[in-house]
């Protein structure tokens, strides 16, 4: 099963869609290696937070399995 990437906020414009399915990968580096360089660079930004299956995790702690959902969360603006 592929991994589902979710792009929030301005990252959606960069990625060209709110979601994208990519081939199964184990780590964040593996996922980013398969993306366009400009997009991968933006997703590595230090202010981008990550969530795997709805739980926020550190970039170094991302460990993916088939069918997982990996969300990229830029700085928020609510209220």
């Amino acid at each position, binding site marked *: 099963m592929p991994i589902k990437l979710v792009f929030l906020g301005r990252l959606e414009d960069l990625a060209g869609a709110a979601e994208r399915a990519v081939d199964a990968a184990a780590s964040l580096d593996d996922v980013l290696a398969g993306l366009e360089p400009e997009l991968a660079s933006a997703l590595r930004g230090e202010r981008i937070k990550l969530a795997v299956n709805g739980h926020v995790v550190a970039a170094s702690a991302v460990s993916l399995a088939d069918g997982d959902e990996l969300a990229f969360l830029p700085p928020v*603006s609510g209220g």
Partner: protein
Amino acid sequence: MACDVRLLEAPFDPAAELAAFTARQAEAGGIASFLGQVRSGGGVEALERRHYAPLTLPGMAALAASALARWELQGVLIIHRSGEMLPAEPIVLVAAAARHRRDAFAAAEFAMDHLKGESWFWKREKVAGAWSWIEPRTVDFEDLKRWA
């Protein structure tokens, strides 16, 4: 119900919501509320708030729970819109009911500062027919520090 926390995809009536909340707070001596709405002007035709379902509502519920734990409150109301909104439409309504006013004021402000600075929402606005994402303001993060 002490906490009423909702994420809405459609417009809501803040006066009716506040009246309903107040009706449940007979033991409160005071209720402080804040209503945020879409500003008119600046050529803004519409504003959109996006959310991420697995995180946004759970985060709002945790925020209400932490306000309840921090002050002596009878109840907390947090309603936040998602989706597209027009100028003058309500975006967010926060209310805190307490026996004493200072707890109500503080809890409402605490909730708003955290909604602004760390809740899972992303904002874009439409000007002259074109949408653009709005980056958070530094002051929104500064506002959070005083609650640390």
